[in-house]
């Protein structure tokens, strides 16, 4: 069932917190000795996942196995797992030594009993008596010293926590966790409070520590660069779900969908169409590619800024077989320049080491294997649990939307009482009829502020797709609308959405005959 050397395994784990699903049925196997990073924006459920592994939260559903044993309901103090907390959570009333020794002083180890001559003491059954004993002060001393040496803090044993810098406190927190020799070390955004330079240093040190200690690290962060630098495996999470699991290289080069591509590294994302076998059209140009998708399929195309090759051309050429654009922005980034190139209505971000000027006309080339094509997430919003209310409006997650219900039957009309009259004169009462509602991505309008449209929501994600934004609006009732729009919004904006009645496509569930009025 599980992999041979799988140390921890989440099986269908969900967590509902205050009525909200924070973690939604995730399954994950982590190999012994791996450095695993759970990556995602705030509120994606990554910290909750970590807390469930640590034992601070009990999953609402599912199981957590440690070395094949169910530990779902075992309290934290009985798990061979230690945590480095986000805000360190060091004991301010203890000095560095006592903080690090905290776990060791509580620990009891089995000690075989021997008498004064050194012979083992036997019990009635002839087995050696084993007593649980605390570690000796000498052992504790040694272990603490070793842990402090690993984190480079040997001289600070007697210092008070409050006299340490953020970086030093961080190290104490790590020492306090690793001194217990856990099987798994959990790290909850441990570098979040450090400045950039310290963070980079600690990243490398942590990686080094991982190599030296050989234990499993599970690291939670929202910083994609941190994840790429340190991990063996990255788990990308979004909205309580796992989007992709893979090595940093896989995740960067082969993102499974636009969300992952957008989250990991900078990228240009376009909506494209397959025009022929191994040919994809985007940026008004047909490029060769290496991903095989059915012809005419709508796809998402990801191009990393560093993979775009610019060549300067003199004068605007009207050649159809080259993709050309104008440089509209230029930013010096040290190692390279970052250009924004306008190609027709779209734009593309390019990283190039050569110095070019704004206004330059350039030819755009992209190597076929640098064009990453993904199955498109969504072309239409589909709401499977919609129903019609007595005013002949469609309810999408309880929100009423005006709609033309006559589309359910060809050539039908509505009478004064709101019954649907078919062409053959049959009468239908659509109240409570279950339907499937479909709304095109570009048929939804986002309006600023609450209560200005038919339904209120908050913007939860924005992905720029070259010439438009794809925005996800989550309503108060937890329904999600995906909207294509030209206008830029901000995440967490409170908005209302509005849909024109003619843009909602309805399909009745089952046979319409059951709604017939006799």
């Amino acid at each position, binding site marked *: 069932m599980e992999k041979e050397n799988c140390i921890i395994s989440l099986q269908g784990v969900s967590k509902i917190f205050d009525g909200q699903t924070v973690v939604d049925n995730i399954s994950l196997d982590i190999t012994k000795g791996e450095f695993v990073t759970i990556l995602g924006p705030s509120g994606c459920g990554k910290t909750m996942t970590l807390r469930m592994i*640590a*034992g*601070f939260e009990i999953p609402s559903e599912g199981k957590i196995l440690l070395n094949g044993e169910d530990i779902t309901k075992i*309290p*934290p*103090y009985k798990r061979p*797992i*230690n*945590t480095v*907390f986000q*805000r360190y*959570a*060091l*004991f301010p*009333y203890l000095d560095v030594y006592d903080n690090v020794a*905290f*776990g060791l002083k*509580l*620990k009891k180890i089995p000690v075989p009993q021997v008498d004064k001559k050194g012979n083992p003491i036997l019990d009635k059954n002839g087995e050696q008596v084993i007593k649980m004993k605390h570690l000796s002060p000498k052992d504790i001393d040694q272990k603490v010293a070793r842990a402090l040496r690993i984190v480079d803090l040997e001289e600070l044993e007697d210092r008070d926590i*409050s006299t340490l810098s953020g970086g030093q406190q961080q190290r104490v927190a790590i020492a*306090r*966790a690793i001194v*217990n020799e856990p099987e798994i070390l959990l790290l909850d955004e441990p570098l979040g409070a450090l400045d950039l330079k310290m963070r980079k240093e600690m990243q490398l040190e942590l990686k080094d520590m991982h190599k030296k200690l050989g234990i499993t690290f599970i690291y939670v962060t929202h910083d994609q660069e941190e994840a790429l630098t340190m991990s063996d495996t990255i788990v990308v999470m979004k909205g309580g779900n796992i989007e992709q699991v893979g090595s940093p290289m896989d995740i960067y080069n082969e993102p499974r969908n636009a969300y992952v591509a957008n989250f990991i590294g900078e990228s240009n994302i376009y909506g494209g169409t397959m025009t022929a076998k191994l040919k994809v059209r985007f940026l008004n140009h047909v490029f060769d590619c290496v991903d095989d998708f059915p012809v005419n399929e709508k796809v998402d195309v990801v191009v990393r800024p560093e993979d775009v090759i610019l060549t300067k051309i003199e004068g605007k050429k009207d050649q159809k077989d080259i993709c050309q654009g104008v440089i509209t922005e230029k930013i010096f980034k040290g190692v390279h320049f970052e250009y924004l190139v306008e190609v027709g209505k779209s734009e593309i971000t390019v990283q190039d080491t050569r110095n070019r000027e704004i206004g330059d006309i350039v030819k755009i080339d992209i190597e076929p294997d640098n064009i990453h094509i993904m199955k498109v997430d969504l072309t239409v919003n589909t709401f499977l649990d919609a129903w019609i209310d007595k005013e002949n409006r469609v309810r999408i997650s309880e929100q009423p939307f005006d709609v033309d219900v006559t589309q359910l039957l060809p050539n039908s009309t509505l009478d004064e009482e709101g019954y649907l009259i078919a062409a053959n004169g049959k009468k239908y009462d659509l109240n409570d009829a279950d339907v499937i509602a479909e709304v095109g991505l570009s048929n939804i309008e986002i309006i600023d502020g609450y209560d200005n449209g038919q339904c209120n929501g908050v913007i939860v994600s924005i992905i720029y797709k070259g010439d438009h934004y794809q925005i996800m609006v989550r309503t108060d009732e937890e329904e999600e609308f995906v909207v294509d729009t030209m206008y830029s919004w901000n995440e967490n904006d409170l908005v209302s959405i509005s849909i024109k009645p003619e843009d909602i496509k309805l399909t009745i569930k089952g046979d319409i005959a059951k709604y017939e009025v006799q």
Partner: protein
Amino acid sequence: MKSNKKKEAKKTRRFFSVFGIPYAVFLILFIIIPILIIVYYAFTENGQFSISAAASFFTSWAKWKVLLISMFVALQTTIICLLIGYPLAYFLANKKFNKNTVLVTLFIAPMWINFVLRTGATRDLLTWIGVKGGRMPYFATLVGMVYNYLPFVILPLYSTMLKLDKSLMEAASDLGANPFQVFIKALAPQTIPGIVSATLMTFMPTMSSYVISDVLSENMITLFGNYINTEFGLGSWNTASFMAMIMLLIVGISLFINLKFNKDKEGGRTQLW
């Protein structure tokens, strides 16, 4: 320009210092002078310097006994109050158990009722349930004391508990501490400032209170406060003053200990003293 500004600043300072005068007058009139008078009476007899009051205090076993009993009662009250108040404050401050502040207000409401009235009511209540002061004076006094000073324990503990760093408790649990060890090693140390304030707010007033024991024990228990009161009533001002001074010293020492305890804790806003 600069000197002008300086002068200006000096002027404003002088102007504002005028507002301090009422406080200074109050301080001198109602705090410093009374203390000086107590000290004066404690070391004089008929206007002459004398240590007879001191001698009579230190040689009188009766007076010592009263002092010791008072301290014992105060200690007992404090411990009982803490035993009741500590868990109560924890639950009141924990959002899981208590989502509003109404309960907290209810628990500290007795503080706002007139002290003498409240004690009288306590006596009647105790008599009604069969705990007659005349029959069990010590128990009645203790009940009265605990009832009176419980709010003073709950309040400082509650405000410390509101600010508990839960991550420390999680960290302790993570490092292998069972629930009891979490309490001892991660929760209790965080509440020390609250415990210290609560202790002082109970211990010091119980030491000197005499109304409660008077009313509830029907004059069968004499505490240090009662003794001082009696001595003043008898006209032996010197002895009474010396005893009052001893009381003041004890209170001063306990305040000093509190200061020591809280020295290295930053903030200190939880302290009511």
